[in-house]
């Protein structure tokens, strides 16, 4: 073994010896150690969780995984937004309508719409609940000249009309009228919920 190698080996041996030997403990070492341990927050405690959120930290992630997560979450967010916009927010739902219906959920009621229109080839229900889309809620002929459809509506006031043969707008003869639609064609009003004070 060459001289430099001997020196290096001796130096390493001194380091190893240092690790092997136990450092001398002071008289209150045990107490200080116990105190330090007691001061540490226990794993899972509120303090450690708060500290985890407050302390600055960095983390590594694969870029493709982050991109995929962002795309997925955006999709979920858009979906949530679309669903919420399709169902008008339920108001305090205190009103009533004199139509048939059965509660399907706390804020939704299945409402039955009918229209007598002998000779009609097609009738669609349109309103603020289906974005006035004439293809969204087609009605079915249940008896000679009587068309009907049942749909769940959120509690509150809704405005609607019927589209006969994809061309003629008519209101519901058995329902309250909305006074002014701004476009020259009257609408009907349905207030979904149960009568107040009965």
């Amino acid at each position, binding site marked *: 073994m060459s001289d430099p190698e001997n020196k290096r080996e001796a130096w390493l041996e001194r380091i190893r010896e240092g690790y092997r030997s136990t450092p001398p403990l002071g008289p209150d070492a045990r107490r200080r150690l116990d105190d330090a341990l007691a001061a540490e927050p226990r794993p899972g405690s509120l303090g450690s969780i708060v500290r*985890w*959120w407050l302390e600055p930290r960095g*983390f590594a*992630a694969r870029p493709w995984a*982050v991109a995929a*997560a*962002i795309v997925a*979450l*955006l999709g*979920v*967010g*858009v*979906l*949530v*937004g*679309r669903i*919420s*916009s399709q169902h*008008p*927010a339920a*108001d*305090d739902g*205190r*009103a*009533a*309508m*004199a139509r048939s219906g059965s509660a399907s959920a706390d804020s939704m009621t299945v409402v039955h719409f009918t229209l007598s229109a002998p000779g009609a080839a097609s009738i669609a229900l*349109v309103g*603020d609940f289906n*974005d*006035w*889309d*004439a293809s969204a809620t087609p009605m079915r002929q249940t008896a000679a000249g009587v068309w009907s459809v049942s749909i769940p509506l959120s509690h*509150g*006031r809704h*405005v609607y009309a019927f589209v006969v043969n994809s061309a003629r*707008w008519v209101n519901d003869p058995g329902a*309250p*009228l*909305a*006074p*002014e*639609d*701004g*476009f020259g*064609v*009257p*609408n009907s*009003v349905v*207030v979904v919920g149960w*009568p*107040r*004070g*009965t």
Partner: protein
Amino acid sequence: MTSLLRAAATAAVLFLWSAAGAWASADSQGLERLDPGTRAAVTSIVEEARKDALPTQPLVSKAIEGATKGASGERIVQAVRAYAEACRHARDAMGKESTEAEIVAAAGALQGGVPPDTLSHLRSARPRESLVVPLVVLSDLVARHVPVSVASVAVLAPTRAGAPDADLLVLRERVEKDIRSGVPPGSAASLQSRAWLSARRWQVSSETKNETPLSKSPRRSTP
């Protein structure tokens, strides 16, 4: 465990961010049916209403309704603007505590010609209960050509006397039936409203008579 927490925290933040963005833009859905100029004008009105904490979804729905009915862009913008203004006046008349459904129903009544004072009186008559049904009935009477002053009294008087929603809806149906059978609209509304008030007085009177001092403090029978 830490990496799981990191992932969960990141996912939560991203989800909230994306959901909030989608939620904010949800009101504008459906406006793609409008031409770009009309859409921009309607969006501007909707944003203005949002700043004033007015209902925005009914405004969007009004624009979509106009597009579906084949109205011109100018007409749509005019209708949405008028509706927003009516909502603003309705809230002013009924108070800031009014619900969205009340504001929308009252806006319809105002557009039918009902004066704001009537809305304030209705609120005074029902300070804590919903005004949606009284407003729907009032709007319906006006739409059936009942003079506004008569329709206002016809709904206001029973509401002040504590008429429940169901009674107001029955009143509306009876007025409609009378009109169909040839009674002039004003007379029909006035008669039905008075009929309800008379029935109410009779009911109250009967209840008072039944609740005699005898029933409150029965006499002792003497042996």
